[in-house]
């Protein structure tokens, strides 16, 4: 347990807020986006059709965010979900287009295949003791590679109605089908987390693997379960994506992994394990979709999306770390630490690096000749 040397008023306030932080954090950011868009571009952002777009985009990530909440709460990570989504989607597409499987068999088949890929991930991590970061990163290459091998450069398109319904169907007068699926998985995930052995052990394992082991929790088995759930949810996202675009190719679903991890972390689930927030993950998914949609609405170049996502991830993780740090110095802490010797050394080092950059730029500019067009 940490020392209790904090000033009492701020501590009690933080203590009272702490259980709700996971929800407050993304809510504040969502509100900020709403306010900003309300000023900048209200007419186009707050249209009903645009709201639909946001929800459709968010729905794709909801199942994965749900599963990733379990994985991260267990102190794990899964970087292979984008490739699992693509490979499951490709396999489903081939079963339907090449082998004539009916959609109502091919879709569950895709989910089972995704679960199997998750099983492989889980076994690699628990049996062969490959660290999750490396293990799933490597399997990301494997699954993506297999998708490319199978699909070659093909784009498979035009699927039966069931698949497109899953991806972009609309319940008349209500929300789109994928949003229903997404919210359902989220609700299911919430229940599993609170009400089942798997959910309970997920928190226990993330909180203290040693204690879980000592009390007889099958740590490895429940870790594998989380990766299997992750794989199945990634496959579900693959099916939803296929249906949404009515097409799939091997390079589909890039950056799913980082987007989903970002949503979960922004939602307040701790990367250090033991602190899940299913509601936060849902809020995180919505937040990221709203942000990307805002960038589009503002007609900011597509490539800035990745910059914005990265900035949001870093700043929110930094914020949570700062908030959860128990023994913060007083309000002057930040400034005081800047005056320390160590900080000054770091400052000088950074300055030297910047200086080198400026120097090289200056030399380059000084010696520059007329550029010859390359090609």
């Amino acid at each position: 347990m940490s020392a209790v040397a904090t000033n009492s008023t701020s501590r009690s306030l933080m203590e009272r807020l702490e259980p709700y932080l996971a929800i407050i954090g993304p809510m504040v950011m969502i509100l900020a986006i709403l306010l900003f868009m309300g000023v900048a571009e209200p007419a186009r952002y707050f249209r009903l059709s645009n709201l639909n777009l946001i929800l459709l985009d968010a729905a794709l990530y909801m199942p994965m965010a749900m599963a990733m909440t379990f994985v991260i709460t267990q102190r794990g990570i899964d970087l292979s979900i984008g490739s699992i989504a693509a490979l499951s989607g490709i396999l489903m597409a081939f079963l339907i287009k090449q082998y004539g499987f009916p959609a109502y068999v091919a879709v569950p088949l895709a989910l089972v295949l995704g679960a199997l890929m998750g099983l492989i991930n889980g076994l690699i991590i628990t049996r062969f003791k490959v660290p999750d970061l490396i293990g799933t990163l490597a399997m990301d290459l494997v699954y993506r590679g297999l998708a490319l091998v199978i699909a070659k450069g093909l784009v498979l398109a035009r699927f039966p109605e069931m698949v497109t319904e899953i991806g972009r169907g609309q319940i008349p007068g209500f929300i789109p089908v994928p949003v229903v699926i997404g919210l359902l998985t989220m609700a299911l995930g919430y229940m599993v987390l609170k009400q089942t052995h798997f959910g309970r052990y997920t928190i226990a394992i993330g909180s203290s693997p040693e204690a879980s082991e000592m009390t007889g929790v099958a740590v490895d088995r429940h870790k594998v379960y989380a990766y299997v759930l992750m794989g199945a949810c990634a496959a579900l996202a693959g099916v939803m994506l296929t249906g949404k675009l009515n097409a799939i190719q091997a390079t589909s679903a890039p950056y799913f992994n980082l987007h989903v991890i970002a949503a979960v972390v922004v939602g307040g689930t701790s990367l250090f394990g033991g602190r899940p927030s299913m509601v936060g993950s849902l809020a995180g998914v919505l937040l990221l979709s709203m942000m990307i949609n805002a960038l589009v609405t503002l007609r900011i170049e597509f490539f800035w999306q990745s910059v914005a996502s990265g900035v949001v991830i870093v700043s929110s993780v930094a914020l949570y770390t700062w908030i959860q740090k128990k023994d913060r110095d007083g309000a002057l802490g930040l400034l005081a630490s800047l005056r320390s010797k160590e900080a000054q050394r770091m400052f000088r080092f950074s300055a030297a690096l910047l200086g080198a950059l400026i120097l090289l730029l200056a030399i380059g500019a000084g010696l520059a000749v007329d550029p010859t067009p390359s090609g």
Partner: protein
Amino acid sequence: MTDHPLVQMRGITKRFGGVTALQDVNLEAYAGEVLAIVGDNGAGKSTLIKILTGVYQPSEGEIFLDGQPLEMASHSDAIAQGIDAVYQTLALADHLTPAANMFLGTELTRKVAGIEFLDNRRMKSEAARVLDERLGVRLRSMDVTTDSLSGGQRQAVAIARAVYHEDLRVLVMDEPTAALGPQETARTLKLIKALREQGLAVILISHSLDDVFEVADRVHVQRRGRRVGVVETANSTVQEVLGLIVGAPANDAA
């Protein structure tokens, strides 16, 4: 105190490779008694209780529970026989509630439409009941995470987990007071006395002879892997036990 021991370890020897951690050690513990095991670091205390709780298997020697020979392949075998331990680290998952911790690994469930769900409400009320009735501990809130509890309260949660099993007969406690302040120590000793009154055999490992003389009935002294003496606290002094621990020539001790 009955005349035949509840637990008896006979001629226990444990070797790790070429190192002999325990050499021909005997141990007896009686129901309704607190037995303290003391000794310097490396005297074999932890190895001894890990054998008793099934974590290690002895190289030689036998364990009897109520006169019946005991074969234990793992810690869960020991728990099934009514022998459990509270570790120094307490083995608590800090982000779970006290009730969730108490039932970790043995959750209460209820069936809804044939599917097993955790019965959080019953676990919470049961946890509050066990803490109150058997340990006399009332927590301000059962909904907080365990890391917000005090050291003594955390101890109580860990003990409650062990005593919840109705057939628990032997409770081993490894350094329960090592990380506690004076007040929390007093509370923990009170818990131990309460367990003794309930007829458990409590085996306590401790470095603090003050605590040992406060709570234990008998003291088992280990030195360099051997038992060098068993004294009754009523007829002994801290000095005598210290002498046994460091191996100083005993003047009037057995």
